[in-house]
């Protein structure tokens, strides 16, 4: 038993070290490369140094946002995979991204930012996501029981409907709106509003704590819903709370950063292979590695063809998908 705790501690320590390394890398690398030795000098110079602004007003917020969103999407993935007992489920399968994207499209086309100001994009994204979630939820509750398989199917179908509607909007919208829509759909960690970043950060940490409280329920769920019931888990209540939690985490992430796919799918999947299926370690390690992965991808996205910036969703998609296929093929070969 002590061996297990030791193993978990080592695992978390390694991930924390990696997180620190990746954050530092992301902090120093970019259009303007800043050597580590100069950091002290820049901080001493304060606001008078132009590099101070690059570090603390541009790069720091991005790292924080990467941490918060990478972590939030990963634990949403862990929870959903645990509940569905299917390691191919991710937050976006539930149609949250589709709804949020539709909300944002409407917002851009209808020029809502004139009315709601800075927050209009995230608000519309969030509302769109929540509307879809409520719809999916209402469709899959029958006789007071939340049917998980139905939930999944409804989510996928509503995603399709939403993306068709988005295409319709794009087909009839003007070209300057089009660019905004496309860039948002592809996902980016560029966010200039500090308040939103702080909000997302808090949301993510709170989500981690809330998910951790349910770690034993999730362990029991891995045996199936009936077995979880036999082990004294209030299955319906837990399912509902966890469902709302994942919706909030995903809805928030999508509305701040757009659609960043695959993080919620591959991170929990790989962590399962590395640390096993015990959610007591799985939740924490997935949160940390999701943060690491997204910060890393974002750094690549903004440096690889600098000064032009890639949308980070493209990088996570290509990188994540490739690694996933590779690992999957290797695993099936071993069998």
């Amino acid at each position, binding site marked *: 038993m002590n061996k297990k705790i030791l193993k978990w501690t080592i695992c978390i320590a390694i991930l924390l070290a990696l997180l620190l390394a990746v954050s530092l890398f992301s902090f120093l690398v970019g259009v303007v490369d800043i050597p580590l030795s100069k950091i002290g000098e820049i901080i001493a110079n304060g606001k008078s140094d132009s590099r101070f602004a690059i570090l603390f007003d541009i790069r720091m917020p991005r790292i924080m946002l990467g941490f918060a969103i990478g972590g939030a999407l990963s634990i949403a993935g862990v929870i959903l995979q645990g509940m569905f007992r299917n390691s191919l489920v991710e937050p976006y399968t539930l149609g949250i991204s589709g709804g949020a994207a539709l909300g944002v499209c409407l917002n851009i086309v209808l020029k809502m930012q004139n009315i709601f100001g800075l927050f209009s994009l995230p608000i519309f994204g969030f509302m769109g996501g929540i509307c879809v979630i409520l719809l999916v939820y209402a469709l899959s509750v029958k006789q007071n029981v939340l049917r998980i398989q139905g939930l999944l199917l409804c989510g996928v179908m509503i995603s399709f409907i939403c993306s068709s509607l988005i295409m319709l909007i794009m087909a009839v919208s003007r070209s300057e709106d089009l660019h905004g829509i496309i860039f948002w759909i592809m996902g980016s960690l560029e966010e200039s509003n500090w308040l939103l970043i702080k909000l997302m950060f808090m949301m993510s940490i709170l989500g981690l704590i809330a998910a951790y409280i349910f770690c034993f329920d999730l362990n029991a769920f891995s045996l199936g819903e009936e077995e979880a*019931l*036999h082990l004294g888990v209030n299955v319906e209540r837990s399912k509902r709370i966890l469902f709302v939690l994942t919706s909030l985490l995903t809805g928030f992430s999508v509305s701040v950063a757009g659609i960043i796919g695959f993080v919620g799918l591959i991170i929990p999947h790989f962590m399962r292979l590395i640390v096993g299926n015990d959610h007591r370690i799985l939740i924490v390690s997935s949160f940390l590695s999701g943060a690491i992965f997204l910060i890393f991808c974002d750094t690549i996205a903004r440096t690889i063809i600098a000064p032009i910036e890639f949308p980070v969703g493209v990088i996570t998609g290509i990188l994540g998908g490739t690694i996933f296929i590779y690992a999957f093929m290797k695993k099936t070969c071993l069998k």
Partner: protein
Amino acid sequence: MLEVRDLTCGYAGSFFIQHVDFKVNAKEIVGIIGPNGSGKTTLLRAISRELRPENGLIMLDGKDIRQMSFKELARKMAVLAQSINPVPLTVEEFVLLGRIPYRKNLQFLENKNDLEAAEEALRLTDTVTLKNHLMTQISGGERQLVFIARALAQQPKLLLLDEPTTHLDITHQVRILDLIKRLNKKLGLTVIMVLHDLNLATEYCQRLILMNHGRIFREGVTGEVINYKTVEEVYKTVVVVEKNPISGKPYVLLVSEDEIKTDLPDR
């Protein structure tokens, strides 16, 4: 110990079991038998609170099970379902899942009681040596023993089993049921089990409940329930009931169609 009163229950409007009434005393082994589709598993699922009864009451230790919290129920009653998916956990981790009903809020690590209960459960089921094996890598018979170990880790008073011997060879059938009998004697565990095999049921249960078409057809000690008339009526099959020369319990012999036509044995 357990009292089922006028229970009517089923799936989505159609009533599967109707007006079921029975009592189980503490430290008894009761078998539920009956043809396929007679409502045995439905009855078990109602007792384990997976199904909501349309009517009637289920009392455990004088308390309505629907008034208890799920945790409280899981500390008193352990359930072994018919098929449990093997998950990639080690045997020890799996048995420790049986301690979930005892977790306090914000207790994330196993305490001494949890570890001792799991150790004891492994010892009782003779699976200590498997401790570090993965659940997916052990045989079906061993897995069944580990499932029982997990149930024991819950430290229940009542154990519900749904066909614990299906898909097992006779070695493991006897091993599992001997174990259950031993637990019944040693720990005073009350056992209710659904069994398909009538001969195992008569051999290991003190009392039998014979279900047919969602109702209790007959209930009583094995000799009262298992005789050729009752069995032929419920199962619609020609059988011969003899006495086991060693245990003195009735056992049921099946006869093939050809034999019946040519030579009807003297019953």
